[in-house]
Every structure is written in structure tokens, then in C-alpha cells.
């Protein structure tokens, strides 16, 4: 393998790698704004200056490919001066909005200014100001803060597959906006906020809700579809504030769709059922776990029962339910997305990330040998185990009991609801459409009086009410 020297360290590289990647392997960090590993290289921000021996001027590390025997300095006097000069230029028009800006705390401009910029400013002229266009329901725009890195334009072109953001005018008057000031069309708009190195494009959903540094971060997996995008659940004080994608080159690279990004909302929906509920004279009424389990036990032992598990459950939960059902000879079937009953019917919904199956673990249910819900088996009672995202099919049965996560709107046909954990509240394993096993991690504690499926099933067995089950 060819070798080059970065800050005195010899590093191997493969042909075509740029200096930022090679330097990162040598443990040298080069500050960047416009460069993003998932996007094309434009070398616009001029922040990644390095000095290459035998080259007369400073080079941008993002657009300079490593070469055999290249000697690169990232810390020479020239480079430090160059970076500070670039920072001064970028900050000419940047407002001192940090106390207001949602990006502060995770802002590249803040970090690099602190790390490589000058503490003082020679500029005393008035800063330019813009009137911002409405960018739709996901993104809030603030052009005053923009440093024209054009990451957003390139993201639209190259990843989201829609050319909707453009740079109009030039020089001091440059305005990064949508074509004709339209709203954003893409279903991947949340990524604009992630890749923006300043607070120019921020999430409306997250606007002023929490400062970035206060959030605790738990790496987990999105349950929005069978793609299994890697996400970070960001939460504080038992409240989830947002989900952001984390890099996984095999699955989602750096991105995620808006559907998955805002999927966490239902877990904090005020109408979510958080107490055991019993139907009494047509109305669902709060009950104690004791009395709810009493009727659950009575139902499960008296009448002919079948189980219906959502494909949004984790492997562990499905296996527990299946084992329980096997002991008492109950049939188990799965449900998830209408029209997608097996992995064979699953497939990409668009050319980017979205899959047709809108639950995370269809593959896992199939691997456990659970068949899809056919509606043919006629039982008196159907017990539905749901993780919150699976769409309930039309069930033909006298009684339907729901265990798991239900919003008030989902409980119409249910005679008994036992609250369970949502995907941010439990640990577990899911298998995505490619067969990759990934772990969900508990980020927050479940509210109300929710219980895990395993606990519900244990309570059901404890009173020996179930014929044929182990005591």
C-alpha cells in the first residue's frame, strides 16, 4: 500500500482517498464545514487548509487526494493563519445568535471558531440580513446564519434525489433557498438540519425545546420500517426530544427519513393508554392491574384464544409469547403492515431508505416461524400484542384484548387494554430486511403503569388459571 506522511506520522492509504480521511486515520483532525463524507466534494468553505510539501500554496484537504510520499503538515504556522483567516471571513456576516440558536452546543461553526479562529474581530460594518421563506413543516430557515457550505444543496441533489435547494445571487448577496421559495418536498427533509454546520436549517419539531448539550444520547434502532436505520434517541428527564441518524455504512449511511425521525412522537402522545383499561358498558375505564389480570386470566382459560403479535415487537418478546403459546397450544400469528405479510412482499418503497414493511421486525417474526394473520382461524378471543406501530387488521372475534402500546384511537374494538413498552422504553433485538440483527436500547422509562409482555404473561401464569400451562 502507498504511504504518505501526515504531521510526521506515516499512514497507509488506498488510491483516491482524500487527505481528511487519511489524516483521521493518523489521529489528526482537520476542521471542515462544506465537506461531508456522504456528499460530493466542492472545497468551498476553505476551512480544511493543509500545507503539502513542494506545493506553493495551502491546499484544501477535502479535494486533495493523498499521493505516494506526500508530506502533509496540518499544524504549521501557515495553516493556522489560513484557518484563522477563513474563520474570520465566515464570521463576517454570522450573527451572534448563539443564545437563541438551536444549533449551539453541537454547532461546527462554534466548535471550529473556538478551536481555530481568532477571539477578536476586526469587522465593524453592519451585517447583512435576510427575510426567510417558509420551508414547510419540518425545517425552519434562518439565512442570516448561513455560511454557504452548500451541503443542503448537494444533499438534495445527491441523496434525496430532488433538486429543490439552490443558491441565488452571489458574493455578499448569496441566498440559499428553495426554487421559487416553495416548501420542501422531500421526505428526508430532517437531514438538512443534521448536515447544516450552522443553525441555518433547524428542526421545527425541536425548536427551543431543549439545548443540545443537555440531551442524553442512547444509540438505538429506528422502528419505522424494516430498514433498521441506526438512530440516536436524544432524551432528558425521561422525555425524548428528538431522534437523529447515526452512521452505519451498511444500512442507512448517514441519513434517515422524516417518518422515522418523528416516529417517537406517539410514545409521548397524551392519548396513549398508560393504565390497564377495562371495557364496561361500552366505555373503557381505568382498572387496577389485579382486576385487569383477573379478567385476562379468565378470558385466556375459558374461551378459545389465539395470539396476534405485531411485527414491531422485538425478537425476545416474540419468542417469549411464542413459548407461552406453545405451552398452552395457542396459535400465534403476526400482523404489521397491511399488504405486506412476508419478507417476500417487502421491498424498497423508494430509492433511498424507506421500505414497504412499516414495522421493524417482520424478518424476525418469520425467522421465529410465526405465520401471517390469515383471519381464517375462528377463535372467541384474540389477544393482540403490539409494540405501537403495527397496524391492526380487521379481526373477526367476539373479544379482542390489546397488550402493549395503544393510543386512544386504536382502542375502539378492544375489550381490555394492558399497557406495554414502546421502542424507546425497552431493550431488545430486531432483524432488518437484510437479516442484520440490531439492538434496541432503553432510553427512557415507561410512564404510567406499563408492564413488559413477559411480566404480563408471568402474571397470567401465576394463578395456575391456564389449563395445560406449567404452574
Amino acid at each position, binding site marked *: 500500500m502507498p504511504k504518505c506522511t501526515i504531521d510526521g506520522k506515516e499512514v497507509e492509504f488506498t488510491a483516491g482517498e482524500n487527505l481528511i480521511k487519511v489524516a483521521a486515520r493518523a489521529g489528526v483532525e482537520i476542521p471542515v464545514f462544506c465537506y461531508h463524507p456522504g456528499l460530493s466534494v466542492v472545497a468551498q468553505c476553505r476551512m480544511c487548509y493543509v500545507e503539502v510539501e513542494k506545493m506553493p500554496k495551502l491546499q484544501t484537504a477535502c479535494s486533495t487526494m493523498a499521493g505516494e510520499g506526500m508530506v502533509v503538515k496540518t499544524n504549521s504556522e501557515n495553516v493556522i493563519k489560513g484557518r484563522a483567516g477563513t474563520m474570520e471571513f465566515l464570521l463576517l456576516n454570522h450573527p451572534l445568535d448563539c*443564545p*437563541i440558536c438551536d444549533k449551539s452546543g453541537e454547532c461546527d461553526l462554534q466548535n471550529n471558531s473556538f478551536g481555530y479562529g481568532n477571539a477578536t474581530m476586526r469587522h465593524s460594518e453592519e451585517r447583512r440580513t435576510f427575510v426567510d421563506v417558509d420551508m414547510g413543516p419540518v425545517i425552519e430557515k434562518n439565512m442570516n446564519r448561513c455560511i454557504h457550505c452548500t451541503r443542503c444543496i448537494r444533499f438534495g441533489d445527491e441523496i434525496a434525489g430532488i433538486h429543490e435547494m439552490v443558491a441565488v445571487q452571489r458574493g455578499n448577496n448569496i441566498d440559499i433557498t428553495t426554487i421559487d421559495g416553495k416548501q420542501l418536498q422531500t421526505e428526508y427533509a430532517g437531514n438538512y438540519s443534521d448536515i447544516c454546520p450552522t443553525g441555518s436549517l433547524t428542526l421545527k419539531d425541536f425548536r427551543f425545546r431543549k439545548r443540545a448539550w443537555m440531551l442524553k444520547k442512547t444509540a438505538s434502532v429506528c422502528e419505522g420500517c424494516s430498514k433498521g436505520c441506526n438512530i440516536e434517541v436524544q432524551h432528558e428527564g425521561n422525555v425524548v426530544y428528538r431522534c437523529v441518524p447515526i452512521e452505519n455504512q451498511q444500512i442507512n449511511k448517514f441519513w434517515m427519513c422524516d417518518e422515522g425521525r418523528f416516529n417517537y412522537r406517539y410514545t409521548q402522545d397524551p392519548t396513549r393508554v398508560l393504565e390497564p383499561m377495562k371495557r364496561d358498558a361500552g366505555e373503557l375505564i381505568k382498572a387496577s392491574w389485579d382486576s385487569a389480570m383477573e379478567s385476562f386470566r379468565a378470558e385466556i382459560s375459558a374461551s378459545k384464544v389465539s395470539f396476534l403479535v405485531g411485527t414491531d415487537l422485538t425478537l425476545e418478546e416474540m419468542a417469549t409469547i411464542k413459548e407461552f403459546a406453545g405451552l398452552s397450544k395457542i396459535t400465534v400469528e403476526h400482523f404489521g403492515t397491511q399488504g405486506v405479510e412476508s419478507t417476500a412482499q417487502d421491498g424498497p418503497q423508494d430509492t433511498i431508505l424507506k421500505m414497504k414493511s412499516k414495522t421493524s421486525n417482520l424478518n424476525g417474526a418469520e425467522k421465529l416461524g410465526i405465520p401471517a394473520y390469515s383471519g381464517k382461524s375462528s377463535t372467541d378471543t384474540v389477544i393482540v400484542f403490539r409494540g405501537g406501530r403495527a397496524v391492526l387488521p380487521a379481526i373477526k372475534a367476539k373479544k379482542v384484548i390489546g397488550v402493549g402500546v395503544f393510543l386512544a384511537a386504536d382502542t375502539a374494538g378492544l375489550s381490555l387494554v394492558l399497557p406495554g413498552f414502546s421502542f424507546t422504553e425497552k431493550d431488545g433485538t430486531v432483524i432488518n430486511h437484510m437479516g442484520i440483527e440490531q439492538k434496541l436500547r432503553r432510553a427512557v422509562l415507561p410512564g404510567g403503569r406499563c408492564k413488559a409482555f413477559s411480566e404480563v404473561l408471568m402474571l397470567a401464569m401465576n394463578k395456575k388459571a391456564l389449563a395445560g400451562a406449567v404452574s
Partner: protein
Amino acid sequence: MLAQRKTGFLNRLYLIEIIQGLLITIRNFFFHKKVTLKFPEERREYSSRFRGQHYIKAVNEIENCTACMLCPTVCPAECIHIEAGEREDKEKYPVKFEIDVLRCCFCGMCEEACPKDAIKLSNIYEMSQEHRSVYSKDFLMEQRGNKS
């Protein structure tokens, strides 16, 4: 065993010491400046840097605070609770600004961290109350003890 000090008869009477002590007391009582004050009629002058009751500085009845959350971040007692919001004349302002004053240790770090000169500690030190007090935003906005 402790060594017993051998003392004379006069010394053992302690009369001289008692008289000496009384003289000090009499001198301090009648001829020295008093260190105590007749509070609340008389009040002590504190340094202008004394850290007392909090207030949020307002200009033209608009609070300086932009709910940047630096004070709850820096607060070692974790006694400041802020909720941010948006209104027409101000992009970001605190909808809720509460200081749990019983938890506060009056270290003044919030004042030091504030980029907007909004949260301040005044010279007011009479803060005793009969109930657990949490200063609300309205209370803090009253400019009680505003120094400037």
C-alpha cells in the same frame, strides 16, 4: 497522670483574674463602638457586589433573557428551571423561569454565565418566608433591587 501545678494562695483565689476580666468587659461595654445593629431600624451597608435576591433585568418591560439555558447549565444547585418559547416581539423568551430559592446557594455563577445580563443578584438579603418559595418569572421581573 497530669502534673499538678503548684500555685500560691492569692493565685488560687483567682480574684486578680476576675477583676482583670471584668475590666475588659466594662471597657468594651461602655467605651467601645458597638458591633451589633438595631435591626430593622438600622441596616448594614453591604458591598455592591453582595449576592442576594435574584431578579431578571428588563429594559422597557421586556426581559433581557432569551432562555439560552446557560444559567441552569452552570447552576451547581440545579435550582433554575426555564422553558423557552416564541412570541411576536421576541424570537425566544422564557415562558417559565423559576428559581427554587431554597436550593440556591447564592454562588452567582448564573449571573456570571449570563450572556444577556438578564439574571442578576441584588443586594436584598431579607428573604425569609413562611412557606417553601419558588420565585416565578413574574416575581423575578419586578426589578426588586435593580442596581442600574
